[in-house]
C-alpha cells in the first residue's frame, strides 16, 4: 500500500482500517527510505514521521531507558543482596519493635495514658520526668500537671528528677526519688491497697507477689 499524505492524516484521525493502520505502522517502523511515499513537494518525510511518533508516544507505555551495562554492581552478588535484605529486615523489625514496645510522648504532654492489654509483654514509656514500665494487663494514667496517678495492675517507675505523685482517690502524696526505681502494685477493683516499694527491697515483698513481678518485668 502506498503511504500518502491523506493516509497519514487519516491515521492521525484514527479513521484507518486495520490494513491501512498496519501499512502506516510498517512504514513508520521501517528505517529505510521509502520511495513509495508520495508527499507534496516541500514536505519532509522525517517531519511526518516525527509527528506520528509524538502521537504514538502518548498512548504507548513509558519505556525506561535500558541501563548501560557496565561493571556488575556489588549488591547483585548473592552474598551482598542477602546481607542487604537481612539488614533491611532487621532494621525494619528493630524500628517496628521499638515503636511497638516504646511509646515516646512529647516531652511536655500533660497526661500519660497507657493501656497494656498484652498478657505477657511490658510496655515502656519515656516521659519528661520519668520512665515507666507498664506491666501486662495493666492500665495507668498519670497527670503530669496535678501529679495524680491512676493505676490498675503493676508498674515500675524510674524518676529522672524527684517527683511527687498522688494516687487517685487517696490524699497521701508520695515522693519518688530520682535515680531510684519503684514498684507500684494496685488491684483493679480499688479495694486492694496500693503497694509501693523500692525495687531494691523487692525481696521484702511476699514471695507470691515477688515472683509475679520478677517474671513480668524480668528483674
Amino acid at each position, binding site marked *: 500500500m502506498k503511504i500518502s499524505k491523506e493516509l497519514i492524516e487519516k491515521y492521525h484521525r484514527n479513521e484507518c482500517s486495520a490494513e491501512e493502520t498496519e501499512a502506516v505502522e510498517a512504514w513508520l517502523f521501517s528505517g529505510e527510505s521509502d520511495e513509495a511515499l508520495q508527499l507534496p513537494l516541500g514536505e519532509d518525510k522525517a517531519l511526518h514521521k516525527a509527528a506520528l511518533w509524538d502521537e504514538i508516544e502518548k498512548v504507548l507505555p513509558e519505556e525506561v531507558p535500558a541501563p548501560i551495562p557496565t561493571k556488575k554492581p556489588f549488591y547483585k552478588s548473592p552474598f551482598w543482596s542477602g546481607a542487604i535484605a537481612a539488614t533491611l529486615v532487621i532494621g525494619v523489625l528493630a524500628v517496628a519493635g521499638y515503636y511497638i514496645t516504646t511509646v515516646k510522648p512529647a516531652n511536655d504532654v500533660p497526661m500519660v495514658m497507657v493501656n497494656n492489654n498484652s498478657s505477657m509483654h511490658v510496655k515502656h514509656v519515656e516521659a519528661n520526668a520519668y520512665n515507666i514500665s507498664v*506491666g501486662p494487663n495493666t492500665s495507668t494514667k498519670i497527670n503530669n500537671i496535678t501529679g495524680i496517678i491512676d493505676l490498675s495492675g503493676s508498674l515500675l517507675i524510674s524518676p529522672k528528677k524527684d517527683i511527687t505523685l498522688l494516687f487517685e482517690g487517696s490524699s497521701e502524696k508520695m515522693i519518688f526519688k530520682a535515680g531510684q526505681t519503684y514498684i507500684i502494685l494496685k488491684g483493679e477493683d480499688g479495694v486492694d491497697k496500693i503497694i509501693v516499694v523500692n525495687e531494691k*527491697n523487692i525481696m521484702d515483698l*511476699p514471695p507470691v507477689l515477688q515472683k509475679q513481678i520478677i517474671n513480668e518485668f524480668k528483674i
Partner: protein
Amino acid sequence: MSSKFNRFLFFLLLLFCCAACTRKSADNGDATVKRYSIYILAKDGKEYLLQSNSLANGLLTPEQDGVELNSKEITRSVIVKDGYYYHLNRNKRTFVKYKLESKSLLEVGSVSLKNFSIENFYWKGPDTLLLTGLNTSDFSQVKYALINTAKMEQIAAGDMDIPRPSGRFDNMSVGFVELRNQKLFVGYTYHQQLSASNYTTSDTTYITKLNYPQMTAVKTDKDTRSTYPGGINTIQPYSFNDEQHNYYFMTCPGIALGNRPELPTAIMRIKSGSDDPDENYFFNLSASATHNHAYGMWYLGNNKVIIRTERKDLFKGLGDHYSTPHFEFYVADLISKTVNKLPLPLDKGTRRQCVLVNKDIAYISVNSPTEGNHIWMYHIKTGELKKGLQLGGNTDFIMRIDELTP
C-alpha cells in the same frame, strides 16, 4: 665473667617474680580466711559484701571496707558455705558459685539451672546441695536439682511427686525440706492470686513425705491449725533440728508471707524418729506475749529459739512493712511455750538473715534509724546483751550476716 653476671641477673629476676607472686597469693589468702560475711544495702541503693574476722567490735563502712556488687549478678538470696556464695541467676538460668576476692566477687563455677525458682536449699552432704523450687512459668510444679558444689555439676533433677494447685489455687510455695532416713519431708501450701497487689493462701499446711531419691510420694499430711509452713530459706531460716533431732518449723500466715492474718503464727514439729508431724505439739506464737505475727527463727540450743516478730500497730501495710522500724526479737522456749522480749531497738527490713549463733553468742543485726546499724551480741547463758560491730557510712540495711568458716 659476663655469663656469670647474666646468670646472676636472671636469678635476681626469678627471685623478684617469686616474691611478687607470693605476696599476691598471701593477699588473696587474707581475703578468704575471714570468718564472717556481711551483706549491706546502702542508702543510695548500692549493695555491698564485707568480710570480717570479728563481729564483736569496731566500725566498718561499706564504701571503704566492702566490695560493691552488681545486682544483675547477685542478690541477697544466696547460700553461703565454706567461704563460697551460691546464687541462682534467673535471667541467665545459671546457678553460680562465687568467691569474694579483695576487690571483686569472682565466679569460680556454674551449672545450668533452667525454669527454676529456688524455694529451699538443703545440704545433703558437705558438697551435695539439694535445691527445691518451682517452675518459673507459673510456679505450680515442685522441682528439684541435686548439685555437686565441688565440681558444680548436676547430679540429678526432675519433678517432685507433689500435687499442682487445683480449684481456686493457681500457685504455691515450698517452705521447708528435711531429709530423714531416706525420706524427704516437704512442707508447702497453695495460693490464689486475687489481683496485682493481693493474694490469699490455703488455710492448710501440707507435708508430703517422699521416697528419696526417687521423689515419689509416700503420703501427705494436712494440718489446718496454721498455714504457710516455713519460707524461702535463702533469705531467712524458718526451721532447725534440735540436739535430739526433733525437727521444728515455723508457720507464717502474717501479711508478709501467707496473708491469712486471722490464722496464728506457730511453731510445729516432726519428732525425732517419727514419720509424722506431731499432732500434739503446737506453739501458738500469736497468742503468746508477742501478740503479733512472726517471721524467721534461729535455734540457740537447749530448747531456746530467737524469733522475730512484727508490730502491727506500727506499720500501715506492705508498702511500709520493710521501711518502718517495727520488728522485735524474742527468745522463745519451745517446751514451756513462753517468750521473753530482748531489749533491742526496733528493727527494720521484712525478711533478713539477721541472726548468727556461734557457741554461746547469738549475733543479732539490728537496723535502727535512730540508734544506727549494729550487730548486737546476746550471751545465751547469761542473757547479757551488748553492742558489737557497727556498720556505718552509707549503710541502710544489714541484710545478711553469715559465717564463712566454722
